[in-house]
């Protein structure tokens, strides 16, 4: 490595070497004194030198004049709103501040100009999201309430607050006439696990249907209270978080609902400027056919249904520019070997049957408590061997480093993941502590799916300002923004806008240009089609200059980006008084 003192001396920036000239009446050098200017020039050069290492350096270099202007305008918007909306410099105890925790900032964010900008930004692809935690539960529970035959049951009565808050609640469809329950689910005489019509339960809820819907939503989302009690720690919030999936899984099991949810989901993604989505989802998708009460025994039913809905959506007006979706097969990492292997076999069988739909393989649920990738080595190597033997391309897209640890088994997952040839990693929160690994991730074009709001909701950071994303970008690691579980974690919107907002609000070094680069990265690292590692790697290297689907999409995104920048200039240029 070149010596920095050498660099500095070449630039004539040896420390304190410039003589001080004229002094002001206090005897202090004027701000434009050569000694002062020399110091300032030194910093400018250093900063520029540092920026060359950034992942977004080339993207920034290639910005069109319009995009540069848009970048300036948006910086001005942020600066203004930091003061007008977020109280920067206000010496008061008003709890607002720039970069405050997302849960309590959310309602204000929606009113900002910065959010308007971000909302419109072409987001490219959503690369990390879990199916049942994507579509806001307000829509889901309302739809359930409107669907005849839907029943609710609970493992205990829901009379006390404690039971209301903790008991597991399930939904189902019943095709027989549900007789009015002997006792309301909200009283102590309720017989556990008795199905009750949802409409009946809702009407009997203290406060009626509106209150019922609010109660259900509160049960399955992490809120301001959870955010403000970060001292309770990661394991505690995961306990609550994981419990939610049981309930919402049952909401996603009845065919008409699933179909309707999928349309809503794709629609809101498209509305948010997301054109491609890779959804993580477990393989066990029992679905209850329309009019039935029990899950269809046909294992293909769900996959056919899913494909159907994608096709249907792409034919709608909204879906015109939607590129599509694939599924990353996931299984809980808590399971023992036989269970993992049998699930892997399923994954391979479905991959063979639905090669276009199944994109990759991953393990989910809390990394800190589940089996480490290192512990799973035999299974993971076996899987690769089997896939190879069957000529199936089903690469890994591992969760890794979603942890606070430094040198614990979860932290070590980021080492194992890259050794297993993962194409991206989910979270990579602890990656910034590993200089050698960051270099390897860079060299091997492994991208990190960064989930700012999710990490905050699950207590890895208190607010966006504490998130290590800037360190990854500064080190040249490829990153893309994802929203993970937006229905649970507070975004309450399937789109990516809130996560994009957090990134630009948190970090001066990102700005609109940096955000654009993150969106472009998401396209660059999408797994649009089965590719061997070589083709995957070269497609990323070539970007818009390549040939094939990926290059097409990158070029399309680039066009949308220019259009968007033009819109920013015409919409906000005058208001924020910025000129080229």
């Amino acid at each position, binding site marked *: 490595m070149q010596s920095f003192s050498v660099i500095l001396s070449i630039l004539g920036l040896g420390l304190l070497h410039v003589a001080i000239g004229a002094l002001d009446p206090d005897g202090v050098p004027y701000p434009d004194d050569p000694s002062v200017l020399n110091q300032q020039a*030194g910093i400018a050069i250093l900063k520029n030198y540092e920026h060359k290492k950034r992942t977004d350096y080339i993207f920034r270099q290639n910005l069109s004049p319009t995009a540069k202007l848009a970048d300036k305008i948006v910086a001005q918007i942020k600066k203004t709103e930091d003061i007008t909306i977020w109280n920067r410099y206000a010496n008061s105890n008003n709890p607002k501040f720039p970069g*405050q925790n997302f849960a309590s900032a959310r309602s204000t964010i929606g009113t900002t100009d910065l959010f308007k900008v971000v909302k419109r930004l072409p987001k490219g692809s959503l690369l990390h999201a879990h199916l049942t935690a994507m579509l806001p539960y307000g829509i889901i529970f309302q739809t359930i309430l409107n669907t005849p035959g839907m029943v609710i049951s609970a493992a205990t009565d829901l009379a006390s607050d404690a039971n209301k808050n903790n008991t597991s609640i399930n939904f189902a469809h019943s095709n027989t006439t549900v007789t009015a329950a002997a006792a309301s689910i909200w009283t102590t005489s309720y017989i556990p696990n008795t199905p009750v019509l949802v409409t009946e339960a809702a009407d009997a809820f203290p406060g009626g249907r509106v209150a019922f819907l609010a109660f259900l939503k509160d049960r399955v989302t992490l809120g301001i209270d959870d955010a403000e009690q970060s001292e309770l720690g990661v394991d505690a919030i995961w306990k609550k978080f994981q419990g939610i999936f049981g309930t919402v899984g049952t909401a996603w099991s009845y065919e008409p609902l699933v179909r309707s949810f999928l349309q809503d989901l794709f629609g809101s993604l498209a509305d948010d400027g997301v054109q491609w989505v890779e959804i993580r989802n477990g393989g066990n998708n029992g679905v209850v056919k329309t009019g039935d009460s029990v899950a269809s025994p046909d294992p293909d039913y769900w996959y056919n249904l899913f494909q159907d809905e994608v096709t249907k959506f792409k034919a709608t007006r909204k879906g015109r520019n939607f590129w599509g979706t694939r599924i990353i097969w996931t299984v809980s990492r808590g399971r023992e070997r036989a269970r993992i292997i049998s699930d892997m076999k399923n994954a391979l069988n479905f991959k063979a049957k639905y090669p276009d739909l199944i994109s990759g393989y991953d393990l989910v649920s809390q990394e800190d408590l589940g089996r480490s990738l290192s512990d799973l080595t035999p299974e993971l190597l076996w899987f690769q061997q089997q896939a190879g033997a069957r000529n199936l391309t089903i690469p890994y897209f591992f969760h890794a480093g979603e942890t606070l640890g430094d040198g614990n*088994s979860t932290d070590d997952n980021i080492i194992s993941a890259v050794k297993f040839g993962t194409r991206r990693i989910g979270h990579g929160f602890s990656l910034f502590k590993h200089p050698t690994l960051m270099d390897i991730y860079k060299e091997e074009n492994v991208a990190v799916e960064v989930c700012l709001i999710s990490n905050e909701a699950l207590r890895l950071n*208190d607010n966006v300002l504490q998130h290590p994303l800037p360190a990854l970008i500064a080190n040249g690691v490829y990153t893309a923004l994802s929203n993970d579980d937006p229905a649970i974690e507070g975004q309450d919107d399937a789109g990516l806008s809130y996560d994009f907002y957090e990134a630009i609000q948190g970090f001066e070094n990102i700005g609109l240009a940096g955000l654009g680069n993150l969106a472009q990265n998401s396209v660059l690292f999408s797994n649009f089609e089965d590719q061997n590692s070589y083709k995957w790697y070269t497609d990323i290297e070539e970007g818009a200059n390549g040939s094939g689907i990926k290059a097409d999409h990158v070029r399309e995104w680039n066009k949308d980006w220019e259009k968007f920048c033009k819109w920013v200039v015409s919409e906000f240029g005058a208001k924020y008084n910025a000129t080229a």
Partner: protein
Amino acid sequence: MQARIKNINAWPSTMPDEEWEEVATGIPTTEEPFIKQYVSGREALIAQEQKQRSDFAFRQSLSPIAQKACRIVSKIRDHEAATIWNSGLEDILAQKIGANVYPGMMFSLAKERMESTALWKIMKKMPKGALLHAHMDAMVDFDYLFGVLLETKGMHIYCNSALDTDIAREGAPVKFRFQVKDRVDGASIWSPEYIPDTPILLTQAADAFPKGGRQGFIAWLKDRCTITNTESIEHHHGVDAVWRKFSSCFGILNTIMFYEPIFRLFMRRMLKQLLDDGVKWVDLRLAFVFRYYKEGTDEPEDTFHEIFRVFGEEIENFKKSEEGKGFWGARMIWTGLRLLDTRKMVEDMDACISVKLAYPHLISGFDLVGQEDAGKPLKAVLPELFWFKKQCAQEGVNIPFFFHAGECLGDGSDTDQNLFDAVLLGTRRIGHGFSLYKHPLLIDMIKEKKILVESCPISNEVLRLCASIMSHPLPALLARGVSCSLCNDDPAILGQDTSGMTHDFWQCLQGWENLGLAGLGSLAENSVRWAAFEDESNSEWMQNIKDATLGSGVRAEKMKEWSIEWEQFCLWIVTEFDDDE
């Protein structure tokens, strides 16, 4: 490390037995060559990364006893994580503050429990070398200081408004001062009749405190001078809010501790606590925005020469005393306030140079303090700093910079960019450097220029830069090879409640697997290597740090002394805690 699976039977296998038997034969065992190859590749990668660590050389040269001590400590750590720091979490109702106990929990919630652990006993005993970042006015525990305050004859309390309501008592700028003649006849400071700015004899006022008399008074004063437990967990209110409280503490303390009799007792308490904690040297920082009073006078000194005379005297007295045996000493990094205007800043710098001329052995450097985010960035005070440099050169004194820089969140903000200025201005160490991990180029420069980062993990947590020790970025700097030391910053205000550094050491040991006792040893050794023992030119400073134990000066001598203590300490661990190894 074994994964911590709680209930694997929750998902029984659904694969028929005969099928499983068939599949099972196809699963490779860990003895298969390609698995072994995978595992060894993985190990090699970890080893390659470890080589970049700043503590790599230290680890390589550990004696067999030290290695054993490290293994023992790591076992104790794991054991305590699983026993003392485990509340089971089975009962969701236990999820209330305090009931839920886990490794790496917030400092203020963990403090009491940590002080009862074996790790604590070990950390307490550890030779910690030098404390390189500590603001003197926030060093001595308030139980002691306020006790002294109340016992000191002639101390009075006053305020610019009556302290008659909860709101007034919460925020009004209460002050203390010595009066030659006791003033006992004014209306009570706790009543609306109080005439603003009238001094009232403190003992009398304390006894009349409306909520619990003297004891209530002390509790109230402590609340005013510390980040309370409640405040320390209210992280969602953000950095600026906690800094408002934090800054206000100093205003009160500055009227308490700079009356000579109190100051002398303060010094003795601080030095004794440091030495008892295994700290042999301290580079203090102090902002000179207070008035100093000699014993028996209520007229303040015009200059800061007298306080430095006493400062030096107390250090020498302590070193000569029985309880101060083995203490190396202390010096002062003069700190100006970063929000001063040019005129006042230059005045302050001038005062610094004048004291340096009188007491060259006591002033070791210059720094700027006050919340970085709210004050002027270094780039805005370049004219002043260049003036200072020139003035020092003219007066023939050597006062190097030891800047605070990057004590902030954010990325690319002005505060974050102070790091660039600090490096270019030739700082010898960086206070905090919290945001440094986001700057790969600066990291390389800092390594090359042998700049040490004074890391203050508990301070950063309580002042809301990170949620807990677990999310502190120090491991990233160590992994990159940056030399760092651990410091306690403002322990009396922030909650450590003692001058010593044991809490900070303990937190790091428990927080990070990659650190361990060896890593802590390296951090302590660094503190000796980068202490400002004496005036050195830039080239001497560089050379002596490079030479480390192989040099010939004070630094080398102290480093050798530290390493002997380290060996003795490791031996003590082995004798005391080795049960079955």
